């Protein structure tokens, strides 16, 4: 049996530490200029949102009727609105609201959706059929209508908006997770886990789910942009964030009637919304290409 040790010694390779592995992967991700751009932009947006109280030159609710509807000047770089509030400060605080609500929505959707999808895919059979039919019922209702109806019934508090927006995310995460779990479940190492006597709970959450993480991350990134847009839509329609708390959607709606006269009212929050959407969508594409170089779409 000496042959075995020599044969095995030949294909010995060095296994780099986890940290250097991550660094290498990250460097590869950043090797694309588009990824640098989208990651930089999202980071910048999060920083702006986080540091809004520090950066904002004025409190977002401070009114100044004497200086209402001022075009961009050095004191108010994005101008002021109908009651003289500083648009720049309100856009920054709006970013805070939009991003935090989007993150919460994604978190709720991801946590529940992944759980539902994983259990459904892993159990299979009747449980899977029932869960997936319920998911499909929710998917058949247009997202914005569902959210509108829920907020109209429950009331436009941030908590209920998050709830209304996450229901559809739950179904999306559930479907993607179920698909991934179905694929991983059929692999031999899952059978090997059963052979060594592991419980189903442990197999699912320690062995199957970690191997499904790729498409889930991609979906979470792509949905960030969607959720921000949906929240703005709700606010635009008056069922989202209520005055005086700033939200891009409400600000765009407020400037809507003065669009020809004072375009900066809608232009700046709209521009930020556009950049945010662009950043998250590009980031989502980048992450997808990075995690799956063959370029299969996940949604």
């Amino acid at each position, binding site marked *: *049996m000496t042959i*075995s040790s020599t044969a*095995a010694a030949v*294909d*010995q390779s060095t296994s780099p530490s986890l940290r250097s592995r991550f660094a290498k992967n990250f460097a590869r991700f950043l090797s694309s200029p588009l990824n640098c751009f989208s990651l930089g932009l999202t980071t910048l947006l999060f920083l702006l949102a986080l540091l809004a109280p520090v950066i904002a030159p004025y409190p977002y609710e401070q009114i100044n009727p004497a200086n209402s509807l001022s075009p961009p000047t050095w004191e108010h770089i994005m101008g002021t609105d109908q009651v003289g509030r500083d648009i720049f400060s309100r856009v920054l605080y709006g970013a805070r609201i939009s991003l935090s609500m989007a993150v919460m929505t994604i978190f709720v959707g991801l946590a529940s959706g992944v759980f539902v999808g994983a259990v459904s895919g892993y159990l299979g059979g009747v449980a899977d059929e029932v869960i997936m039919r319920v998911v499909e019922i929710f998917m058949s209702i247009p997202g914005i209508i569902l959210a509108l109806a829920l907020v109209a019934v429950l009331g436009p508090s941030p908590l209920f908006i998050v709830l209304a927006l996450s229901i559809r995310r739950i179904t999306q995460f559930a479907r993607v997770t179920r698909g991934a779990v179905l694929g991983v479940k059929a692999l031999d190492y899952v059978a090997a886990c059963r*052979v*060594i*006597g*592991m419980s189903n709970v442990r197999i699912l959450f320690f062995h199957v789910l970690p191997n499904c993480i790729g498409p889930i991350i991609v979906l979470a990134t792509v949905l960030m942009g969607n959720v921000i847009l949906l929240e703005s839509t709700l606010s635009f329609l008056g069922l989202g964030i209520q005055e005086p708390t700033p939200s891009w959607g409400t600000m765009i709606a407020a400037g809507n009637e003065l669009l020809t006269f004072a375009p900066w009212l809608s232009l700046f929050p709209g521009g930020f919304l556009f950049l945010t959407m662009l950043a998250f969508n590009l980031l989502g594409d980048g992450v997808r290409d990075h995690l799956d170089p063959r370029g299969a779409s996940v949604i």
Partner: protein
Amino acid sequence: MDMDKPILQLQGLRTEFKTGSGWVTAVDDLSYSVNAGETLGIVGESGCGKSVSSLCVLRLLPEPPGRISGGEIWYGGEDLTKVAETRIRDIRGNEIAMVFQEPMTTLNPLMTIGTQLCEPIMKHQGLSRKDAMQRAHELLQLVRIPDARHWLKGYPHEMSGGMRQRVVIAMALACSPKVLIADEPTTALDVTIQAQILALLKELQDRLGMAVIMVTHDLGVIAEIADRVVVMYAGSKVEEATVEDLFARPRHPYTHGLFRAIPDIDSITSSEGAPTRLEEIPGMVPALDAMPSGCPFSTRCPFVIERCLAERPILEEKAPGHFAACFRELS
């Protein structure tokens, strides 16, 4: 341990699968036993039920569509077909372990070798993570992985197929099982690695005194490792004998055909004319839902007589310790 007392015994095992046209029988009235320290070879072609029957031992048959519809599997005074799910989970990996065919996919790609090896040890032996790692290290040395300490932190994709199969074997041996079921453990490996793995299995068996059930379609593997052989055809056992008896004098026409289908280098090269054609068993295994009423092999058997078509032969002792299910006496 008493060498003559079976450690695992299957009695009249019967499994069925649900298909579009009802239940079909995949394993029909299968009985065999294996003693401690013994290697039982189960040989047969694809779909003959050899893997299905070994999955049943650990109750790993996917249900649905499969089900065990009859028979008993005795292990240490317990019928494994009836024990509770928690009990069978304690047995899996601890007392009866299994090695699969495909080493490339039997390891979790996201976990280090060490962590995966620790899982059964921590579960069944209640060791701390540190002690389990120590044991994992010993196991890697046991299966002759060089530089074992380094590989504890390695990932499966860094290993070759042969090394992975060693890790899979190490994982199966982690809790010193009494029975090891190896389901075509060398099929996916090339021949030199195959020889190493078989030698390793044999050596470990001698050292640990476990029973090994070697499921394979390769008579070469059987010759190398088995003590006793069960030949399966279309879901049932057609012949059972010691490996010497079986290779010296196969008594079932199917086994006979299998041996004749092994290419013989002399007969190909010695004749002056065209090389002789490789012998084959004519026809196909009948579909599980279209079994002939008599002997299942009757459709392909060169020695078929009228009785074979009407009546199903039962297993009888043709010579001491040599059983075959055939009406005829092959010479």
